[in-house]
C-alpha cells in the first residue's frame, strides 16, 4: 500500500529578495525513489534547503505537507525529528566534534532513547563496513580534512545510521569515483524500503543504473517542468535541457 509521504503545492521561495522557487509541485509516496535533474542554477539545492528549513530561504507561497502535517514553519531540527534528512551538496567541516560522538548525540535526540556507547559503536562499525569506510573515520572530526568523496560517503553514513523517513540527496554522487558510486548507490538501495522515500538530485545517469528510480523530475527555473520515468533521464543525457528552457 503506497502512502503519500510528501505533498508540495505551488511552492515559492525567495532568498535575499530573489525569487528562486516559482511554484513547485511534487508528490512522493513511501517506498519510492525519485530523481531530480536540472541545469546549474535551476534551484535544486534551494529546493533541498527549503524542504529542510534553511532560515535564509523564505517560503512566500505554497505548502509543504510531510506525513500529513504542514511543516512550513518548523525549524530544521524539528523537521529532522519528523524524519527528514538532507545529504548536503557541500557538507560543513566541524572541528572538535567526532563523527561518532556527533552521530550518537543525533541518534539520541532523534529517537529520544539513550544509545549505549558500545552498542552504538557496534552499529556504526557495521554501517561503515557496508559503505567500505575505514573505522578510523569514526574518531575523526566531522568532515574536517575529508576529501570531497569522503564527505559524501560520510553523509550517506549519517543517513543509514539516523534512518530518516525522507532522505534528500543533493548531488551525493558528484565527486565520487566509480567504485564509490557503486558502494554508495548500493547503500542507498539497501536503505530504501516500503516505509521511506528518497529524492536524489543528480547530474549523472550512472547512479540511476543502480537505483532503478520510480520517477524522474526535471527542474528548470524554479519549477518542475516535466516528470517521467528513467527514459526521461536518458533523453536528457542525449539532448540536454535545451528544449525545457
Amino acid at each position, binding site marked *: 500500500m503506497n502512502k503519500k509521504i510528501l505533498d508540495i503545492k505551488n511552492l515559492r521561495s525567495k532568498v535575499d529578495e530573489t525569487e528562486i522557487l516559482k511554484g513547485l509541485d511534487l508528490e512522493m509516496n513511501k517506498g519510492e525513489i525519485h530523481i531530480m535533474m536540472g541545469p546549474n542554477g535551476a534551484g535544486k539545492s534551494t529546493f533541498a534547503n527549503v524542504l529542510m528549513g534553511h*532560515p535564509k530561504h523564505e517560503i512566500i507561497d505554497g505548502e509543504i505537507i510531510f506525513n500529513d502535517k504542514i511543516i512550513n514553519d518548523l525549524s530544521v*531540527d524539528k523537521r529532522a525529528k519528523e524524519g527528514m*534528512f538532507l545529504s548536503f551538496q557541500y*557538507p*560543513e567541516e*566541524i572541528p*572538535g566534534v567526532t563523527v561518532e560522538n556527533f552521530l550518537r*548525540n543525533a541518534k539520541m535526540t*532523534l529517537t529520544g532513547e539513550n544509545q549505549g556507547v558500545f552498542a552504538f559503536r557496534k552499529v556504526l562499525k557495521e554501517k561503515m563496513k557496508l559503505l567500505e569506510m575505514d573505522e578510523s573515520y569514526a574518531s575523526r572530526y566531522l568532515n574536517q580534512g575529508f576529501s570531497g568523496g569522503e564527505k559524501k560517503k560520510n553523509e550517506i553514513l549519517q543517513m543509514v545510521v539516523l534512518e530518516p523517513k525522507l532522505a534528500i540527496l543533493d548531488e551525493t554522487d558528484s565527486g565520487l569515483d566509480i567504485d564509490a558510486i557503486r558502494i554508495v548507490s548500493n547503500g542507498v538501495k539497501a536503505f530504501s524500503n516500503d516505509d521511506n522515500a528518497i529524492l536524489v538530485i543528480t547530474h549523472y545517469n550512472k547512479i540511476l543504473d543502480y537505483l532503478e528510480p520510480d520517477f524522474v523530475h526535471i527542474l528548470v527555473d524554479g519549477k518542475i517542468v516535466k516528470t517521467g520515468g528513467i527514459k526521461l533521464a536518458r533523453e536528457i543525457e542525449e539532448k540536454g535541457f535545451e528544449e525545457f528552457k
Partner: protein
Amino acid sequence: MYNENLLNNLSFKEYRLDKLKKYNKLQIPKWKRINLQDFDIPDYREYNNLQLPGHEDLDIRDMGTVKEDINEFTRYLRVNEEFGVDKKFVTLTEALSNSGVIIKIEKNKRISEPIRLDFKMDNDNPLLLDHNLIIAKRNSELTVVMDYTSNTKVFHSGVTKVYAEDNSNVTIIKLQRMDEDSDDFDSNIAIVGRDAKVNWVSIELGGKITASSFITNLKEDNSKADLKSIYFGDKDMEIDVQYKMNHFGRRSESNINTKGALKDRAKKVFRGDLDFKKGASRSKGEEEEYVLLLDKTVKSDAIPALICGEDDVEGEHAASAGQINELKLFYLMSRGISESQAKKMIVEASFKPVIDKIPYEDLKEKVEENIHRRLIDEKS
C-alpha cells in the same frame, strides 16, 4: 593604606617593606576598558587553605609561612621591569603575600608528574594574595597546575614569577574557577633562558571582574614560549586579558592561541603583543584570538599588536570575532540537534584542545561541567 606592622612576622621583610612603600604611594587604578572604578581593596586577612604538596625531588616552600629570609631566593623575587595587570595589585601581593609557593627544581631533574596547588577561597579565607616563585634550573623539567576556586565573593591578587633557566622546560597550567561575584587580578611573568621553553595554559571561567596578564621575556637564543588560553564569560562578567611576548634572544619563538566565548552581557578586552626587540633576529611570533559571540548583547574588543625593533623577524597576528557560523549551525541542526545544543557543541569543541592540557581527570570534568552548565543556561 596598609600599615607596616603587618609585615612584622613575615619573611623577606626588607623586600616587602620596599614594596609596601611603593604600594602605599600608588593609586587604585581606574580602567575604562572594563569599567574598573572606585574599586576597594579589602582589608588584610590571613590565608590558611593551601596544602603544600610534597615531592622528594623538589624544594617546595609556602611563601605565606616561610619565616626566615632565604637569600638565595631574594634575587628571584626582584623583577626589574614593570609587569602585571597593574602596579598597584602587583606591589600589594609582593608586599603582603599571605600565600604562594617557592618551588625550585635542581638542574638535570625532570619531573613528569605535575605539581598541583589548590587555592581554595571561602568565607574564612576571602583574601588571597599569592606570590609564587618557580625556579627551574638548567636542563630541568616541571609542570605546575594552579587551581583557583571560591564558593563565595572573594578577592584574589596573584603574582607568579617563573624562571626557566637554560635548556629547561616549564609548564604552568592555571585554572580560574572563582565564584561569579569575585574579583580576580592575576599577574604572571616568565624569564626564559637559552634553549628553554615555557608553556602557559590559562583557563578563565569565573569572577565578576577578572584581569590576567602573562608576560614572557624570551631572553636568550632559542628561547621559546607557548601560551594557550580559553575564557568563558556570561552574565555581567568583565574579562581583561593581556598577553605579551618580549623577544630579546635570536631565533626566539613564541605562540599565543586564545579561544573565547561570550554570552549574555559579558565584556572582554584582549590585548596581545608580540614585541621583537632590537637584536632578536630570525625570531618568530604568532598570535591568534578567536571569540564566539553567543548573544548580541556581549561586548568584545581585541587589540593585537606587533612591535618590531628588528627587521629580520616573522610576526603574525590575527584576532577575529564572530557569531557561530550559520551554515555549520544549520548542518548540525539538520540532524535533529537543537540550536542551543549545537552552539554548545561548537563552543565545547573549540575549547577542547586547551581543556585536554589539564593533566587531571577530575579537574577536566569540573571545567567541562562548568562550561556546559552555563551554556545551557538559556538566559541570565
